[in-house]
């Protein structure tokens, strides 16, 4: 082609691009456009700890177990049945007839391979904690697999259902991890149509998805996943119809978007609990006022959790009474509670020797929490506690917590779709780096709950710990973390409590 021809062709193409409207999302072309936050380089949830990656994994892969969000029960997915063999061994019987996206059959070997691959401590995965409970896997007969654990780990079924997506042994061994991260093959309801870092991820329905899957059959033909970090841009795209579904928006934005005619909104509580932690043992310095129980009680009384939750968190989000959410196994609400009472808070401060209040740094994470965090600061300010807030990044936050330099702060506990009180208590009240109470009584109870498998004994142990935490106000539990979604009215969508939407369950109305 001559240079002139090329120029003309380019010009015409440019003109065509200008003339054509931007790709609209929606029902008409049976393409769901879902806007996520963080751009991803690879599609392996083991080699990428971003929560958005877990969402994508959900669509491409299956787990051995699936947790029914309605009942909270673990139902078999890739497995046909499962049971505890002993405190450190789980047994799974594998379904037959399931096929990988490339048509090859799924087998017990794939499960064994995946577990053993991840259990290798030398493997460079930054989501090590998701795998470190597993020691090895062993094939018992044709379709039965045992997973051996490194320690007694009662939350194992939860981890299996949430994190342990199964990889294809033969394909993985053929292409290697680097190629697999870019073009993975799963058993899941959707398969990859195209993936280039920096571009939207295109998925298409897996027509050969196995019939007995507890999540049902995928209904929407095509999925286009975009990555847009700035929440306003996501909101704007939804408003102009370029996107069908967005999550992680502020309550105020959700309310406003709900007024837009072609949009619908939904909000759900999640399995995470938000809390304030208080340095009750003086890790940050012997002189911290927070060592006084009365000061901690004053803080609990000073915050108008009800008003903040109603106005800024969301209409149906339950307040947390204890250091857990009601969805977690082992949680209880039969603990001491502290009603909003600024007068009493001032009195308690005066009794503790701080009639004029005090100043303290306050560390927290998360840009989108800023608004209600400010409301909390303002309430504290009313009773004389002047906090200097530090909105930091995750590493800086972790450092302050582990080093014990933080006096007080906000946190979100639980999560990563683990519905078990151990995920809160085992992490924050185990006497370790993140424990600002280091109360022997609590530590012992938490240890017990984390090791025994008997549900009733676990419940009792956790109740003991939670009661003590509330009495001593080691934490001020706030409310369940919530997640807000807005979406195209044509889309039938129910927000999942585990923050991991399953596209296979969505339909066009």
């Amino acid at each position: 082609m001559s240079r002139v021809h090329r120029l003309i062709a380019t010009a015409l193409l440019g003109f065509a691009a200008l003339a054509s409207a931007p790709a609209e999302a929606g029902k008409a072309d049976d393409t769901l456009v879902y806007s996520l936050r963080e751009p991803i380089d690879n599609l392996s949830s083991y080699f990428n700890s971003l929560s958005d990656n877990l969402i994508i994994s959900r669509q491409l892969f299956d787990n051995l177990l699936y947790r029914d969000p309605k009942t909270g029960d673990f139902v078999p997915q890739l497995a046909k049945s499962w049971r505890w063999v002993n405190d450190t061994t789980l047994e799974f019987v594998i379904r037959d007839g399931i096929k990988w996206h490339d048509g090859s059959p799924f087998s017990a070997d794939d499960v064994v391979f995946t577990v053993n691959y991840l259990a290798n401590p030398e493997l460079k995965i930054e989501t090590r904690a998701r795998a470190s409970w597993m020691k090895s896997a062993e094939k018992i007969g044709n379709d039965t697999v045992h997973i051996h654990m490194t320690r007694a780990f009662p939350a194992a079924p939860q981890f299996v259902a949430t994190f342990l997506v199964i990889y294809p042994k033969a394909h993985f061994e053929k292409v290697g991890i680097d190629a697999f991260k870019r073009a993975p093959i799963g058993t899941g309801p959707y398969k990859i149509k195209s993936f280039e870092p920096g571009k939207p991820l295109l998925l298409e329905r897996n027509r050969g998805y196995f019939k007995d899957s507890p999540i049902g059959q995928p209904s929407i033909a095509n999925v286009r996943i975009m990555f847009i970090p700035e929440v306003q841009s996501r909101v704007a795209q939804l408003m102009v119809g370029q996107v069908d579904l967005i999550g992680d928006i502020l309550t105020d934005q959700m309310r406003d978007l709900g007024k837009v005619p072609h949009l619908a909104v939904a909000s759900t509580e999640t399995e995470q609990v938000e809390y304030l932690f208080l340095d009750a043992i003086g890790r940050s310095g012997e002189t911290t006022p927070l060592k006084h129980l009365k000061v901690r009680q004053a803080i609990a009384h000073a915050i108008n959790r009800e008003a903040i939750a109603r106005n800024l968190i969301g209409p149906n989000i339950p307040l947390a009474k204890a250091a857990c959410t009601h969805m977690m196994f082992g949680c209880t609400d039969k603990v001491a509670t502290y009603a909003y009472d600024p007068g009493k808070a001032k009195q308690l401060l005066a009794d503790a020797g701080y009639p004029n209040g005090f100043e303290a740094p306050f560390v927290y994470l998360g840009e989108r929490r800023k608004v209600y965090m400010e409301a909390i600061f303002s309430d504290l300010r009313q009773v004389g506690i002047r906090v200097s807030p530090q909105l930091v990044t995750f590493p800086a936050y972790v450092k302050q917590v582990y080093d014990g330099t933080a006096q007080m702060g906000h946190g979100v506990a639980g999560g990563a779709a683990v519905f078990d009180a151990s995920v809160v208590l085992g992490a924050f009240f185990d006497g370790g780096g993140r424990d600002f109470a280091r109360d022997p009584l609590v530590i012992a109870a938490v240890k017990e709950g984390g090791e025994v498998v008997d549900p009733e004994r676990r419940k009792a142990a956790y109740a003991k710990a939670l009661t003590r935490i509330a009495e001593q106000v080691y934490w001020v539990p706030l409310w369940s973390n919530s997640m807000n979604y807005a979406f195209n009215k044509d889309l039938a969508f129910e927000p999942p409590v585990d923050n991991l939407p399953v596209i296979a369950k969505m339909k066009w109305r």
Partner: protein
Amino acid sequence: MTALAERRWPGAFRHTSLVAGGAVVLLVALMALFAPLVAPHDPFLQNLDHRLVPPVWEAEGRWAHPLGTDALGRDYLSRLVYGARISLFIALSVGLLSGLIGTALGLAAGYYGGWIDTAMLFILTNRLAMPGVLITLAVVAIVGGSLTVVILVLGFLNWDRFAVVVRSAAQREASRDYVLAASAHGASGFRIMLAEILPNLMGPLLVVLTVEMAHAILIEAALSFLGLGVPPPNPSWGLMVNEAKDHIFFHPWMIFIPGIAIFGLVLAINLVGDGLRDVLAPEWRP
């Protein structure tokens, strides 16, 4: 004579700009100084029952909150008034800190020359090669944002213009007769720099100071926009933009007000700077 006049921006414009810019800066400074008298409400007082009240020119606005209220029901006008304090404080502190560093380096390099000059130029090249925005972000992300951190980081990163200007001015002044005379009388290099050369650099220094102040306000706003600037509940204008951006599509006035305040103040400071340059140091026109 014509060449000199042509070098500057138009004469009439120059004067109006200096006057107009100066008036705005003065107004903002007064507002900041007498914030408690000017602001109708406590800028920190939240009222969750009166959130997102629009400003008076909107249909549901009321005079109790002339510029409306923010997402926590705090009076927007009061926050704007108190925010002027923070913006000006940051601008001045960063300007002075970077001015101190840059002037010291520039003076030493320009006056002594030789290896000191070479060393300074090397440091300067290094500084210019470092992506300032990225470093600022990284440092603030690591240590956490606070007024002090923001001022220190910006102060330590933005001295280059001072150093460049002071260095060449000092080189020129160092060869003047009065410096030679002082040096012949046995005055020390340090004394000559401070007592003889520095006073003669006030014009260009003042001009660079305005540039850096304007720059500091913009950078702080950008940091706050990314959530790494001055921490809440301080009513920094950048933070107000940051908080308002959540509401841009439904309550656009929220982002317009602090955005225009930043734009206006920076514009005014730049106008003052341009005017000062024409008056004090025409040779420093870019």
